[in-house]
Structure formats: structure tokens, C-alpha cells
């Protein structure tokens, strides 16, 4: 097994009197999709925000590429290669795909000593990257607003990978999507993983996790319930762990395994 690109050891995070994370450990290796599962309020968001430099852990250590990591700002984490794709805030609908793709990383060319946005380069790269991801745009000037939710996620993922993400954190990318869009996003995750990027996939949908995940870490009430490898765990067990082994077991029968 390759060396983990990032290791989180006994991470604790307290917000005043609230203990959001009470000692969570997890590691991610390049080229794997590590699913982070948990119910609402389990601490998933706090945990990934710690990983992406938004929060500083109260206790615990983070090792990035073998060295202790201490990011002050999300910008530092992005520069180091940790990219986060947020569900609703990935894209700006009124702007073109190409403008969105290069937002914050605009390519420039010099004309008479002045620096201008290199639209041709931006358009070419955008069309090429979108084609690789299986999205055929009408043109690079097509507004993101005309894309479906799944396509927007895909553009955001392609953007993160294009700009050198080594770790891609996906915050519930599928939770608002339909069946077909979900499968497109899952296919995208698979493509990204095969390029050697470490993917952290946050979800509370066991079936989405099992479709692409290599390893599964379940969070419950700020604690980790352990990490399981693919094939070592059944959907039912994962579901039970997410609910903390509580009443879901009894609900399961009446819902007929549809949760």
C-alpha cells in the first residue's frame, strides 16, 4: 500500500462548550476514493473543514505528505493541493463555463506590456477538459446556469484536478442530484481517482459510497466508528454504523431496505 498523502490523527475540535470532533483519525492514499459517511451533525463538515484549512484543530495532528501540516488559511491548503468542491457554491450560474473554470486562476498574456485575460487559451482548455469528462458544451461561452447540477459538479471537479489538486474533497456532491446525474458524478470520481488523485467523498448515502469507495470511514457524534475496506463490509452494516446502531435497525424492516 502506498504512503498516505494525508493523515489525520486524533483530531479534536471544540467550539466553545460544544465538542464537534472528539478524536477522529483517518488517512487517504493517492488514487483511492475514501468515503466519509455519517448522519447530519455527525461532524463530517467540521472534519473536512479542518482538513482544508478552514478550521484549526483544537487537538490532534495532521500530516500532509509525511510532514506536519499547519495551514492558516484555506488559500494555503489550496496552494498545497487540497481542493474542496462544495455542493452549492462550486459555480457561478451567470458566468460562462470557461470564465468559471479559470475563476481565480485566470490565464494571462501580455500585449504591449499590459496583462490581458487569455480567452483563447481558456476556451481551448475548457473545451478539452470538458470533453475528457464527457460533457459536450455548445461552446465555452455557454453559461453554467444552463448545465445540470451533475454537470456543474463535474466542471468543478475537473477544474480542481486541472489546477493540480492532489486531494479532492467532495462535500455531498450527489445529495441534490437525480439518478442519472449522480451516476455521472460517480463516473467522474472514478476518472479522477484513476489519475492518482486522492478523493475524499462525503455522503450520507450508503449506495453512492459503495458504488465508488475503496475505503469507508463512518463518523457518529464526533467520533469515528472505524475504517473499513471495500468488500469487508455490507451496506446494512454501514447503514447501522451511520445511525450509531440505534433504532434504524427496527425501522429497516418497515422501510424495506430503501433508506
Amino acid at each position: 500500500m502506498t504512503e498516505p498523502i494525508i493523515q489525520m490523527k486524533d483530531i479534536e475540535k471544540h467550539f466553545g462548550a460544544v465538542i464537534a470532533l472528539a478524536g477522529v483519525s483517518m488517512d487517504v492514499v493517492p488514487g483511492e476514493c475514501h468515503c466519509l459517511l455519517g448522519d447530519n451533525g455527525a461532524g463530517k463538515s467540521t472534519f473536512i473543514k479542518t482538513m482544508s484549512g478552514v478550521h484549526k484543530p483544537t487537538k490532534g495532528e495532521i500530516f500532509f505528505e509525511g510532514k506536519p501540516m499547519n495551514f492558516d488559511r484555506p488559500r494555503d491548503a489550496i496552494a498545497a493541493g487540497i481542493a474542496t468542491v462544495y455542493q452549492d457554491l462550486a459555480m457561478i450560474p451567470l458566468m460562462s463555463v470557461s470564465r468559471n473554470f479559470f475563476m481565480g486562476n485566470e490565464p494571462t498574456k501580455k500585449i504591449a506590456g499590459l496583462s490581458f485575460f487569455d480567452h483563447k487559451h481558456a476556451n481551448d482548455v475548457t473545451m478539452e477538459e470538458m470533453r475528457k469528462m464527457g460533457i459536450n458544451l455548445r461552446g465555452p461561452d455557454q453559461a453554467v446556469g444552463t448545465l445540470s447540477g451533475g454537470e456543474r459538479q463535474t466542471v468543478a471537479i475537473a477544474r480542481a484536478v486541472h489546477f493540480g489538486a492532489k486531494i479532492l474533497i467532495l462535500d455531498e456532491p450527489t445529495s441534490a442530484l437525480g439518478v442519472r446525474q449522480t451516476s455521472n458524478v460517480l463516473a467522474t470520481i472514478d476518472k479522477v481517482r484513476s489519475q492518482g488523485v486522492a478523493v475524499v467523498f462525503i455522503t450520507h448515502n450508503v449506495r453512492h459510497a459503495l458504488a465508488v469507495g475503496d475505503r469507508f470511514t463512518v463518523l457518529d457524534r464526533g467520533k469515528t466508528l472505524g475504517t473499513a475496506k471495500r468488500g469487508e463490509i455490507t451496506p446494512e452494516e454501514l447503514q447501522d454504523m451511520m445511525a450509531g446502531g440505534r433504532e434504524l435497525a427496527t425501522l429497516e424492516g418497515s422501510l424495506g431496505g430503501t433508506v
Partner: protein
Amino acid sequence: MSDQSVSDIGRDERIKETSRLRKALVRPELGSICGAILVFVFFLLVARDSGMFAVDGIMNWGVVTAQFAIIAVGACLLMISGEFDLSVGSMIGFSGIVIALLSVTWGLPMWFAILVAFAVAMSIGWLNGYLVIKTGLPSFIVTLAFLYILRGLTIFIAISTTNKTIIGGVRDAAEGDWLAPLFGGKVLKGLFVWLADIGLVDTFVAGNLAGQPVVEGIPMLIVWAIALIVFAHILLTRTKFGNWIFASGGDAQAARYTGVPVNRVKILMFIFTAFCATVFATCQVMEFGSAAADRGLLKEFEAIISVVIGGALLTGGYGSVIGAALGALIFGVVQQGLFFAGVESSLFRVFLGTILLLAVILNTYIRRMITGEK
């Protein structure tokens, strides 16, 4: 995944092919282009013989258009970055009084007075932006406060130092100054003399200007307007910073996540708006030879209306400088055209309100087409 299925993803049978016409329609400038054509056709029919389209007539509405355009350019970039500035009108009055007070009342050099006016106004622009960013309040409220604060201060300063709300004598104070002609001067004077010589421009037949062309030259106001339009258009569409302006207004949080310095962009746009207002004020003070505390009244709304007619969304993230300039052109042509056509000038406000309403309805429709909302 096979190539077949890849091309399938792009073609959804439920999405109709968009026609070229529809694609051409989805441009921010559309409304203002149609409006400008309509306005010109109307006045060509109604006021053709009134001299509106003679050289001096064109210069007449050209100057008014340039005035609208200068403040509209600032308001346009600011609105695209997601904010408003309602203090533009008060800023015009304030800057004018600062220039006149320093140069005429206190006898300081004109260039110094002008530079101080720019520095003070741009600092107030910065303060507007800083307060909006730091408090998280809507810019509508913060700049509304400055609309009153600045207007009150302007009148107070003028009264308490000179006992008047109008300070005259600016033209004498500007005599021989090196900076003042940049705002009050005229260019291409030789061209108009030549045009008069070959008979394309009328000359005065009587008085002490007899024999000189009726149009002396192109006022610097128009040069400023064109320069600002070109600068802002290139900045917005052809630079990295322009992309940041769109992104800041489109969705500030999403822009921040990708590393766009949203706060800096917005504050700079407030400063740029203040700069435009001061250019307007300085040109006006030089042209009239006086500053008055009530100058610039309602200019903030005229600027915003020009921008909205130009296709910008009030919510930010979408718009065009060219559109805003065309909005200003519509304004200038109609305001002066009604005068040429001999129509009661109060109808201008009726027109203003009507065209604003139509523009907003059209813009909302265009946005739905872009984003696919219902």
C-alpha cells in the same frame, strides 16, 4: 466509456437547439441597442429640421450623453461587482465645492484643488466600500447614509465658509493652470475651423465670434467619457480583474472559495465610482465656472438607470459597459431631443420611468434564458 455514449451526454433530446437569433438575443446590450435605434429613428422623424442633427446639435446632446456616461461607467462596474452607490450625486456636489473652495476662496493652485478633490472623494469611496464589507450591510443602506451625509456637509461647508451655496470665479482661478484644461478644455479645435472653412460646419454670422465655427472643439468631458468607456470595457471583458468583477457579483462566496479577493474587488469598484463622480464634478465646475452645493442631485439614479437599460442585473454578476454607455446615449438623446422637438420637458421623467420598467422586465427575461430558470 465508449465514444458513442460520450457524445450522447451532450445531446439531450429534450433540449431544443437554440437558434442563432435567440443566441444573439441573449446579450446584455440587446435592450439598449434596440432602444438607441428606436430613439434615433423617432427623433429623426420628429425633430429632423430642428437642428438636432447638425454639428452643434450633436455636440449639444453629445455633452449630455457624456455626462451620463461618465457616472454610468462607474455605476456599471460597481453594480456588476454586486454593489450600489447612491452617494454618487452627493459626491458630485461635494467634489465641486471642494475644488471651488480650495482654489477660489482659499486661493490655492487649481491643480492642487483638483487633486485634493479626487483624493477626498476616492477616500470616501473607499470608506463606503469598507463599511459595506465590514458590516455586511447592504450597500443600498450604507451609501444612502452617505447620500445625506455628503449633501449636508457640502451645503454646511459652503455656507459656513462663504455664506453662499454657489462659489463662482473658478474660471479665473483656473487661468494658466496645467491640470484644469484636462477637464475644462476642448480638443481638435483646428479640425472644426477646417470643417467650417470647407463649409461643413456653420460659422457665427454676427457678434464678436463672427466667422468662427459654431462648435469650437470637442469638450474634454466627451474625451473623458470615451476614455472611461474604453478603459472599463477592456477591464471588464479582457482582463483577469474583469473576471473577478463578474465573479464577486455573481456569487461572492463561490468566488472566495476559488481564491478571488472579493473584498478588494468591491472596495476598488467603490473607489472607481467615486473617481468617475469626481471627473464629472471637475468637468462641470470648469464648464460652468462655478460650483454649487446642489449639483448632482438625483445623478445616482440616472447612473443606475443607464446601467440597467444597458442590461446589467441589479443583483450583480451580469452586465456590460457598452450597454451602460448606450443607456447614457438614450438618456442624452431623449432629454435634449424633447427640447429640440419642442415637447414639454417634464415628459422626460415619464419616459425615464417607462423605459426603466421595460428594461428591467427585458433583463429578467434574458436572465431566465441564460440560467434556465422558470
